[in-house]
């Protein structure tokens, strides 16, 4: 029964991906892509990856969708359906892709690895990692170096978005005026509580800095769309500081550990506290970076102040 459901879901995913890329109108393609992302989150639940399902729904579908819609609005939705590539390029590419898919499927089918990876090792060291959620342990303890560099990637992306700014920023629509203002005012406490809760719960259950940061980014987008959009400018010291704080805080914690061991080697008793500190810093930067990327897509970043 569950296998039948999974099979249905798997087939639906492939069809949705194909449909998203085949839509004639670009705006419909974008919406289809977002639907595809949401349904993918369902597949990740089915393979026991709730952390990823949460992040995919928030970032893969939510943030990416917002970025796509913003870009679409800026360039206008009247893009004509792409003209066809001539057949002598098209045919080999199609055949090559088909062969590639066949080959990969055959490899997986015949050589499906029967080992369990590092699951046992990761769970065995869990008591020394400062939490009970193995994914958080991987991301912020065992392989924290990856995440530090990843935060740098996000920081660089936000900086690059500022390099795109040139003209006076375009005005964003104020779609819901007073109602949106009311909504934001009433919901803000709940949003704040949810963000803190998501970071907090990450140590033992699905959550952590990335879904929380995506939520913060969503709030940023709503504020941008609202009646009094905040000024995002590289000239602002606050903006520069908040963009960098996630990476900087992470790096300082990493360096602080050198006192007693290797870089990033938290003492077992304090591991949870250090990880939380890192995550709160990251959440702020992730949220602001997503907001900046959205503003960059919408053409809404400010320049340096005069003088």
């Amino acid at each position, binding site marked *: 029964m569950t296998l039948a459901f999974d099979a249905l879901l798997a087939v639906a995913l492939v069809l949705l991906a194909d449909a998203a890329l085949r839509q004639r109108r670009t705006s419909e393609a974008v919406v289809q892509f977002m639907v595809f992302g949401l349904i993918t989150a369902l597949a990740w639940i089915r393979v026991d990856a709730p952390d990823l399902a949460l992040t995919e729904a928030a970032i893969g579908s939510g943030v990416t969708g917002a970025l796509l819609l913003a870009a679409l609005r800026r360039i206008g939705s009247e893009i004509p359906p792409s003209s066809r590539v001539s057949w002598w390029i098209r045919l080999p590419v199609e055949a090559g892709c088909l062969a590639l898919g066949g080959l990969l499927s055959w490899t997986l089918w015949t050589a499906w690895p029967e*080992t369990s990876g590092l699951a046992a090792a990761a769970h065995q060291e869990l008591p020394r990692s400062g939490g009970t959620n193995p994914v958080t342990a991987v991301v912020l303890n065992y*392989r924290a170096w990856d995440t530090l560099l990843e935060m740098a990637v996000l920081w660089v992306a936000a*900086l690059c978005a500022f390099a795109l700014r040139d003209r006076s920023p375009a005005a964003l629509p104020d779609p819901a005026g007073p109602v949106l203002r009311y909504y934001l005012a009433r919901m803000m406490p709940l949003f704040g509580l949810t963000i803190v809760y998501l970071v907090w719960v990450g140590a033992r259950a699905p959550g952590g800095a990335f879904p929380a940061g995506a939520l913060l980014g969503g709030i940023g987008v709503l504020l941008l769309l609202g009646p009094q959009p905040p000024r995002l400018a590289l000239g602002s010291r606050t903006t520069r500081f908040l963009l960098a704080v996630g990476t900087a805080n992470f790096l300082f914690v990493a360096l602080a550990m050198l006192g007693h061991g290797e870089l990033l080697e938290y003492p077992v008793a304090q591991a949870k506290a250090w990880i939380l500190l890192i995550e709160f810093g990251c959440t702020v930067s992730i949220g602001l970076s997503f907001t900046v990327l959205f503003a960059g897509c919408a053409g809404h970043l400010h320049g340096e102040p005069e003088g």
Partner: protein
Amino acid sequence: MIPAEIAVPLPVVLPLLAALGFGLARPHPGVARAAMLLLALSPAPLLRLVLQRGPVQADLGGWGPPLGIRLDADGVTVLFLLFHSVVAGVVGWVAAGEDEAPSATERSRLFWPLLAVAWAALNALVLSRDLFNLYVSLELISLAGVGLILLTGTAAAARAAIDYLLLALVGGLLYLLGVGFAYAAADSLDLAQVTSALVPGPLAETALVFLLIGLCIKSALFPVHTWLPPAHANARAPVSALLSGLVVTGAYIVVLRLWASGFRALAPSLLPDLLAGLGALGIVWGGWMAWRQERLKRILAYSTVSQTGYLFLVYGLGGAEAGPAAGVWAGTIALALGHGLSKAAAFLAAGMLAARAGSDRLDALRGSVLTQPVAVGLFALAAANLMGLPPGLGFLGKWLLFKAAFAQGQWALFSALLLGTVLAVMYLVRPLERMLCGSAPKPDEAGFREGALAALPVLGLALLPFIVSWWLSGPDSLLHVGSVLPALPEGGVP
């Protein structure tokens, strides 16, 4: 002495700290210069450790493989860290001079953090021995590279940045698929553990093929090189110097490490010849296109495609410890280093020439030796090594490859090497001839003195390939410290 757990990550941590600092406040040119010096010295403690103790490791987080990430510094790693220090340091030094100019724009605020991040990521790339961590480092390099290209602010630069970023994204994702297969087959991401655990079979082969496809896109191997020329030709000169000199080599180093650490035993028999064949095609195609360009920076950009091709010949030449293939690994590393140093110097010289002439079109540079003898001299020096004149690193590398191809009777590769050398002479002599001949406006004394001072570090960059080649070929050079690559044969250097 600084302990290993500090010395090993220091070349990454220090540039990253500097980047964050630069991101918060735009550095004064003097501060930027001091910072460049400091960052260039960041591998020094590690160099001392490695020379005294041999290879050193740092297990980040204290976990160690397979659960944690290990940084590992052997002789080749330190050699590349020093290489990054020299090139990025000089690039930063020259750029600090440009920042003093009144034309420095708002975008120059972004140059410093991006330069330092790219530097940190390149150092992270050569230190890391973890397949997935390599992916993150590669993506960080790509994004910083895109940002640096964007600083030009023109439509051509934006178009080039889009092509570069899209291909880098796709290349990175394909590499990631390879990582997934390798992990599934070996239950580890640590390079040494993966190569010892993998058994030849469909999983290992698929993993290797996808890792290679991703890396080849990022290092601009022949059919997937199309992103490189516009990207490198449309950036500011210091940025082009950094991208062509270091970034392309960065992705290539990962290929070399994968191959040398044991992946070559898993490769399907066709693969080495395929890589070498594409390399040979790249040499010829890049050289031919370089010859046909009318702009100096485009010539240099296509030259990078050609010179990257050389680095892939090694896979078709075997690379055994002794016998006919001896020395090809060392030769390839010599070529990579020599190309990076000289190409950076050539781009910086081209930047000086173009700034004065108002354009980098060959016609505009006619007779520029009279107005800018220093810049033309620097360009000529860099060109000499790129052509492979002795006793530079380019010569050393090509000589070793020639010898191996000859000894193995690999005539196709041999003729590609030959053709590439001829083409290099052709495409480099062409701009030189324009610069040296023709009349020009009267020379300008003040400009000359100014230019000479700024050019001093670039002169070091251009001369280094000729100095280092003696030292690199010695038996006690860094190349041999705990490296998986076979050593240079005795008397291998003419």
